[in-house]
C-alpha cells in the first residue's frame, strides 16, 4: 500500500494535524466530544452544522444502521449561537465550524459568530433532508455562489460542502469556486429512504434521509474525480472512507484531505488507527499522490 509522510498539513487555508478530519454532524454537538475525537487522532474536526436559530431536528427515527451504510435524517438540530460556549474547550485546536442558513444573509450572520474563534468555516449547502436549507440551496449554482461570497473573505478560510444529488456536481463546484471558496468538500449524503415492511411506512421520521458510509464510497470517489478535473481549488474527499487505503484512493482521485463520518460508528479511535496504517517516515509526499489517478 502507498503510505504518506506524517506531519501537519495545510489545506484550503486551514492547518491540520494530519489528513483525517471528522465530518460534520458526527459527534460534533459538544466541545468535549470534538476534543475527544482530536485526542483520539483526528487531524481536524468539523462541528455539527450551526444555523441562524435553534432547531430541535426531525422526529425520530433519525438514523438507521444498514448493512453497508447508514441513513439519517437528523434535521439539523442545533443550539444556534448558544453553540459558541462549546468552543471554549477547543482553543487553538483545528476546528472547522459547519454552518447553514436559508439565505446568503443568514450564512453571513452565522459565519460572523465564528470568525476569529475557529480555523475555518464549512458551508453546508448539501444536507438532503432539511427543507429550505442544505441541498435545497446547494443544487442551485447561483445561490451557491452567493452564499459562498457572503462568507468568504480574507482571513476566513471557507470550505463549501457539496451535495451529490445533482445532475452535474462540477457545476456546483465551479460556482463555489467563483464565490471565493478556499476548498470544496465532496460529498454530503445521497438522498435515500428505507421502508419498514412490518410497519408499512418509511423508517425515518422525516421519510427521506441521507445515505452515508461504505455504500457511497464509489459515488464519492467519482465526484472527487470529476471536481478535480473541473476545479482548481483543493478538494476534501468525504463519503464512505473507512480505511487508509480508502484515504489513498480519495487522494488519487484528487482529494487533498478527507473527512470521515460514518466509520466512526466502528470505533471512535478510527482516526488514530487509520493514521497508523497511512503514515510512515519513509512515505510519499502527499503531492505525489493527490490526483495521480488522472492519467
Amino acid at each position: 500500500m502507498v503510505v504518506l509522510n506524517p506531519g501537519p498539513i495545510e489545506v484550503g487555508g486551514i492547518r491540520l494535524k494530519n489528513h483525517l478530519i471528522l465530518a460534520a454532524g458526527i459527534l460534533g454537538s459538544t466541545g468535549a466530544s470534538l476534543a475527544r475525537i482530536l485526542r483520539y487522532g483526528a487531524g481536524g474536526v468539523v462541528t455539527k452544522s450551526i444555523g441562524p436559530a435553534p432547531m430541535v431536528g426531525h422526529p425520530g427515527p433519525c438514523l438507521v444502521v444498514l448493512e453497508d451504510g447508514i441513513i439519517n435524517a437528523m434535521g439539523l438540530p442545533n443550539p444556534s449561537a448558544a453553540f459558541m460556549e462549546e468552543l471554549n474547550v477547543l482553543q487553538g485546536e483545528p476546528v472547522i465550524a459547519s454552518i447553514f442558513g436559508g439565505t446568503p444573509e443568514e450564512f453571513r450572520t452565522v459565519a460572523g459568530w465564528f470568525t476569529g474563534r475557529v480555523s475555518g468555516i464549512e458551508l453546508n449547502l448539501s444536507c438532503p433532508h432539511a427543507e429550505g436549507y442544505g441541498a435545497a440551496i446547494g443544487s442551485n449554482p447561483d445561490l451557491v455562489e452567493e452564499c459562498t461570497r457572503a462568507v468568504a473573505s480574507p482571513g476566513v478560510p471557507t470550505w463549501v460542502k457539496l451535495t451529490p444529488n445533482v445532475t452535474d456536481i462540477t457545476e456546483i463546484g465551479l460556482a463555489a469556486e467563483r464565490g471565493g471558496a478556499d476548498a470544496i468538500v465532496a460529498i454530503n449524503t445521497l438522498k435515500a429512504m428505507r421502508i419498514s415492511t412490518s410497519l408499512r411506512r418509511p423508517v425515518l421520521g422525516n421519510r427521506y434521509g441521507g445515505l452515508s458510509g461504505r455504500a457511497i464510497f464509489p459515488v464519492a470517489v467519482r465526484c472527487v474525480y470529476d471536481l478535480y478535473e473541473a476545479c482548481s481549488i483543493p478538494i476534501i474527499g468525504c463519503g464512505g472512507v473507512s480505511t487508509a487505503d480508502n484515504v489513498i484512493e480519495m487522494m488519487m482521485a484528487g482529494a487533498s484531505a478527507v473527512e470521515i463520518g460514518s466509520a466512526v460508528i466502528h470505533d471512535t479511535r478510527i482516526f488514530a488507527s487509520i493514521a497508523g496504517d497511512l503514515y510512515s517516515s519513509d512515505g510519499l509526499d502527499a503531492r505525489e499522490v493527490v490526483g495521480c489517478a488522472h492519467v
Partner: protein
Amino acid sequence: MYEEMPIGVSITRIVEETPSIRTFYFDHEISARPGQFVMVWVPGVDEIPMALSSSSSITVQKVGDATAALFAMGEGDVMGIRGPYGNGFSAGGRTLAIAGGVGATPLLPLAESGQVEVFLLGARTASEVVFADRIRRVARLMVATDDGTAGHQGFVTELVSRVDLEGFDRICVCGPEVMMAAVLRILERAGCAGRGEFSLQRYMKCGVGLCGSCCIDPHGLRVCRDGPVFPGTVLLDSEFGRYARDASGRRQRV
C-alpha cells in the same frame, strides 16, 4: 455491520403499574444485558430510548408526546424496536440497587436474574411505587415515599444510611438525576464512588454513538454507546447533576 432496521413488534398485553406508568409486553424476545436499552419507535410520532423491563417488555412513564402516544396504543398495535444498545451494568458481585420512580425499570431485570441482594425503591407516593411485589420475590426491598404513604417517609437516598455500603461490590442506581446525584455524593463521602454504577438519561437521537446529542462533559462520553451506565468516578466533576443538553443541544439545568 449488520442491518439494524427496527423490528415491528405487536403489543400483546398492557399492565398499568401505577397511574402514570405502564408496562407494554410485546411478541418478541430481545436478548439484552440488564441496563441496556432499546430505541422505541412510536409510528408517526417519534423514537425514544427505553430500558427493557424484561426481554419482551418496556415500562413507560407518560411525560410527553411520544410516551402519551404509547399510552394511547392498545393490544395488537405495532411499534418498532431497534437495539439493544449501550453497555448495561457490569457483571456480578453482591449488589445494592437504588431506584427512583420509573428508574426501577433497568434494575428490575437485574433483580429478577438474581443479581440484587437489597433493593431501595423510592416514589412520590404509595400508588407510584413500581414492581414492589416482583422485587420482593427476589431481593430484600426497602421502600421510601415522599409523602410516607408507603415505607419510609422521605427520599430514597435516606434509606442508604440503613444499609452497610461496605458489604456491596456494586451499587446500581437509576432514577431522576437529582436523586442519582445525591446518591453519588453519599458514595463519594463513603469513599466508594467507584463501586457505584449510574444509569444516565440524556436526550438521544441516534442511539448508536454517531450523532453526538447524548454526549456528556467533560470527557465527551456518549451516554448511548459508552453508557448509559457509568461508574461514579467517571461522573464526579462532570456535568452530571448539574446540566444536560436538550434536543437542540442547548445546556439546561437538571
